[in-house]
């Protein structure tokens, strides 16, 4: 283990880092034979680090090379299919795509707020105490089980196409975007309520005992003590669900909303290239990554202010 020879040899598959790994490993062995154990450990450590660089950097380089190779394979047909210059440099295509993407963003933002509130409500209902609340708990459980089972695309069809055809009062005359927000909120509300529920149940009962012993009612205890701590705890899994929600806004194209995916399909049909889909993918990437990092930053900042106590 001291000289790390096997790892150093293996890392030769990426020579720029593999060679230093091997050199340090050999040096470490010589030093060990001479009895200079401490210096040998130092070189062993360097050999180990170089070997890991070799794995990480090597894999990246080879992967990128393979992708570039793929782009130019078959006389560049991959590049033409996914990254046609004529479309990539066409301002009006971008303009149309971004206009569509703005609809996805709007649906996402509104649905997210609806889901945050609705799911918390469902979670609290599922956790109501006492035998008298059993029917309410049952109702909430049925909703959660059902809407976690239905594929989101089915719910979008049923709500977005079905409700207007049934011509119901109130819900029969909404815009397509409102239907989609409704459908996605139903689906994601079920998921997110489970996240909230796990968070609420993770709060130690001693917090409830402390609050109740001060005379706070059950509702006040939930409102001021349990839920605020639970929400802080579930931010990472919530975040995960919201990235899922953001991507699933693409489903709205199936009921004819002119979102980014619908527009990509038009461009694809008109120009016979999948480039527009690549552009759509890029748009999602550009929005999701900063969003994730921003929320992580918020979470870290809050954690450094208050660590969870007993």
């Amino acid at each position, binding site marked *: 283990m001291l000289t790390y020879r096997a790892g150093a040899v293996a890392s030769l598959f990426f020579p720029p880092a593999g060679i230093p790994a091997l050199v340090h490993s050999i040096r470490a062995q010589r030093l060990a034979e001479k009895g200079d154990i401490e210096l040998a450990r130092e070189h062993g450590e360097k050999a180990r680090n170089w070997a890991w660089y070799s794995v990480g950097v090597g894999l990246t380089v080879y992967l990128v090379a393979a992708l570039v190779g793929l782009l130019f394979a078959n006389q560049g047909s991959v590049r033409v299919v996914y990254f046609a210059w004529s479309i990539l440099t066409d301002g009006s295509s971008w303009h149309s795509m971004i206009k569509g993407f703005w609809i996805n963003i709007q649906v996402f933002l509104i649905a997210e707020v609806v889901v945050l509130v609705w799911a918390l409500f469902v979670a609290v209902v599922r956790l109501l105490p006492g035998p008298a609340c059993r029917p309410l708990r049952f109702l909430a459980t049925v909703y959660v089980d059902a809407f976690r089972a239905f594929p989101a695309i089915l719910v979008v069809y049923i709500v977005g196409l079905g409700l207007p055809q049934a011509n119901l009062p109130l819900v029969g005359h909404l815009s397509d975007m409102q239907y989609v927000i409704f459908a996605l909120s139903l689906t994601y509300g079920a998921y997110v309520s489970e996240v909230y529920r796990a968070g609420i149940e993770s709060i130690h009962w001693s917090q409830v005992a402390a609050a109740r012993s001060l005379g*706070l009612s059950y509702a006040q205890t939930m409102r001021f003590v349990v839920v605020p701590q639970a929400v802080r705890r579930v931010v990472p899994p919530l975040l995960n669900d919201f990235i899922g929600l953001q991507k699933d806004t693409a489903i709205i194209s199936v009921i004819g909303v002119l979102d980014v995916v619908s527009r990509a399909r038009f461009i694809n049909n008109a120009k016979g290239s999948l480039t527009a889909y690549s552009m759509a993918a890029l748009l999602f990437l550009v929005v999701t990554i900063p969003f994730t990092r921003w929320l992580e930053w918020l979470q870290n900042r809050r954690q450094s202010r208050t660590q969870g106590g007993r």
Partner: protein
Amino acid sequence: MAFLEINQVFKRFGHIEVLRGIELQVERHQVVCLIGASGSGKSTLLRCINALEVIDGGEIRLDGDRVSGRGIDVDALRQEVGIVFQSFNLFPHMRVIDNITLAPRKVLGMNHDEAEAKAMALLRRVGLTEKATDYPDRLSGGQQQRVAIVRALAMDPKLMLLDEITSALDPELVAEVLNIVRDLASEGMTMMLATHEMGFAKEVSSKVCFLHQGVILEEGPPEKIFGDPSEDRTREFLKRIVDAGRL
């Protein structure tokens, strides 16, 4: 009738009978110490008094009012009875000042400024005014426990229940918490303490109860219980305490 009357109280957890007919009277301004081995029922008894546990038999009366069984308003009861826990149980997401003012504002309907002024006065008494805007995790165990005491006091309870409040503290922090309890006792606060601090129990209590297997085996003034107990079990228990160097 005594201020707190506990008559034939029984409490079971599954098959385990934790309290098996507790009889106890506490007068106003008395400080009653509950001593006894772990599992003898001290904490459970305290938790039954403010209805954090529902009793299976018997009756508890506070100030003449029945506070056990059906048809009681637990929230009203708990406004009268404060409890402090072994593990502090401060709300980690709130600053010290908000921990203290939450119940006065939400339960008693006190306005914000009034509640804060009262909380600051109480914090001054326990020497923690400079910690008012810190979060609990920035405080030592002793400081957290002092805040927990203040949080209970902010509701102006008629009775304070202290459940082994120094057991989770490092030895050098015990004194700062006990000093506050001593002050409260001298001001005439009615208190019940479950404690392993025998020296403190001896000094501060007006009555000591020795619990054994869910009953009060022996009760009396501290001189009697610590000096000349009449039950063998009490003697055995105290001998173990002395042998451990805790008395």
